[in-house]
């Protein structure tokens, strides 16, 4: 029997709206299609009407999980446009937050992968330990999700000795736990049965479909912006690019845990070599006309911001590419010939951040801007009227 099943726009496996349309025969997927556009906020258009300071916070809100990555990518570009030389201590703190964010993002993903596989205990334990890094971030920056620590020319908050000690202590605990999860993830039979050999993506496919980040690295494509284009502090740090060659979801789990372990190493180095001095330099409000391409290795892969300045305090054009968008074509390939049961795992394995990928289109107009309270009865009436006008469409086709 051949039929199409819709995954999304609203589905328990998806934390954000996206639509995956699967054509399945029995339990096997024969074709997959992805449809975006449920989460558009028009960030690129809005950015053209805001000044550089405001845009830091705007870009931060492109993503909730890797918020620091977008704002750092933007700020890096703006600093180049303004020809600023931010002080070293500020840079260390900025990229310290980057690495902490990478840890938090990967642990979050690890928990979600467990949850998608129905391994809820794993999910609970990983997320419990993720609290440690969340608390560290809250302590350093003043908030748990949107850190708002970047400013043009440096960072906004300094670190003191007590905080440094706490970071090192937290990292030591987390390292122990991460090693345990690496061991567990590779040894619990029911979990391994679910993730090994699932969602295969060969190296040739990675290259032709331009996949990025851990998805690509799990297929042996060892590219990492931090290594190949070492921005700011990364050329002073000693780390390795984590790769795996199993090309499946298991490989992606292993790559992410290895990256987390590398991040602990980097944080310890940064804490040891934290220079003294200022944390920020004074920045002008306007940037000279010019253009810059800023790249940043976010937890999910390469972020790229293209900023064009026109001499005012607002950018002429800000183009944002979030890594998830780059992984969608690869996802479609991975889904083909999989089982229905593998959909959430394969899709989750790219660590999709849907609102990241869809940042950039329309301003959702709130029609009149007026708010009114509708009673339940009225709502029901409206819903009934709506159903009557649009009778049940059998075998409805996807409107595309």
């Amino acid at each position: 029997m051949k039929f199409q099943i819709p995954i999304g726009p609203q589905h328990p496996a998806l934390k954000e709206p996206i639509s995956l349309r699967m054509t399945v025969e029995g339990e096997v997927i024969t074709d997959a299609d992805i449809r975006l556009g449920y989460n558009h906020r028009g960030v690129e258009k809005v950015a053209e009407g805001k000044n550089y300071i405001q845009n830091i916070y705007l870009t931060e809100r492109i993503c909730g999980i890797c918020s620091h990555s977008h704002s750092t990518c933007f700020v890096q570009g703006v600093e180049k446009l303004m020809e600023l030389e931010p002080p070293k201590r500020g840079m260390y703190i900025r990229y310290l937050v980057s690495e902490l964010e990478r840890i938090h993002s990967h642990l979050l993903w690890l928990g979600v992968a467990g949850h998608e596989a129905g391994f809820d205990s794993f999910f609970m334990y990983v997320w419990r330990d993720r609290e440690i890094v969340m608390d560290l971030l809250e302590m350093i920056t003043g908030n748990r999700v949107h850190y708002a620590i970047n400013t043009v020319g440096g960072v906004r908050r300094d670190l003191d000795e007590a905080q440094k000690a706490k970071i090192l202590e937290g990292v030591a605990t987390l390292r122990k736990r991460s090693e345990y999860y690496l061991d567990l993830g590779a040894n619990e039979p029911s979990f391994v049965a679910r993730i090994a050999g699932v969602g295969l993506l060969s190296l040739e496919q990675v290259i032709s479909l331009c996949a990025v980040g851990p998805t690509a690295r799990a297929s042996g494509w060892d590219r990492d912006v931090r290594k190949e284009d070492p921005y700011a502090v990364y050329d002073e740090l000693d780390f390795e690019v984590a790769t795996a060659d199993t090309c499946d979801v298991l490989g992606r789990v292993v790559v992410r845990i290895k990256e987390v372990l590398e991040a602990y190493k980097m944080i310890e180095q940064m804490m040891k070599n934290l220079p003294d001095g200022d944390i920020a330099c004074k920045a002008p409000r306007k940037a000279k006309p010019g253009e810059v391409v800023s790249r940043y290795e976010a937890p999910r892969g390469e972020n790229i911001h293209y900023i064009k300045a026109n001499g005012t305090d607002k950018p002429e054009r800000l183009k944002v590419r979030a890594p998830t968008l780059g992984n969608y074509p690869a996802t479609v390939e991975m889904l083909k010939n999989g089982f229905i049961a593998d959909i959430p795992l394969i899709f989750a394995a790219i660590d999709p951040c849907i609102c990241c990928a869809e940042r950039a289109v329309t301003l959702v107009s709130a029609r009149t801007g007026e708010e009114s309270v509708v009673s339940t009865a009225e709502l029901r009436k409206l819903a009934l009227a709506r159903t009557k006008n649009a009778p049940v469409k059998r075998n409805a086709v996807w409107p595309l």
Partner: protein
Amino acid sequence: MRIAAFLPELLRHLFKKPATIDYPFKKIAVPPGFRGTPYLRPELCIVCKACERDCPAEAIEISDVDPAEKRFRMIIHNDRCIHCAQCVDSCPTNPKAMQIDNLHEIAADDRHKLKAEWIYVRAVIKPKAAAPAAPAAPAAEPKA
């Protein structure tokens, strides 16, 4: 692969204290420096509008009430506020007129109830010698 690889970890935690807390009844303190809700100290505000200009969410609104008396009104739209504290950074006075506290449980059933409003007379910048503690003008009480 090991059968029941997770078992020791699970049993170890069976009688341990839970990691979660009973939230609305027990709370954990936020760390110092937490960015909560912004508020104004009207006795210090010189109405330079730097905060209004830099606010990414357009949550600060300053308008004239009575130009002759130099009376102004500031509304902080907490329903729009994104708690970035850029207004505090942008504020040029010393001590800062814009402040942020660590209140974070500010939910309300109507977003219009979240607006905070101050009507005040513009402060006059005093020479550096004068102590900043003395309020520059009689301040109006916050109405919100």
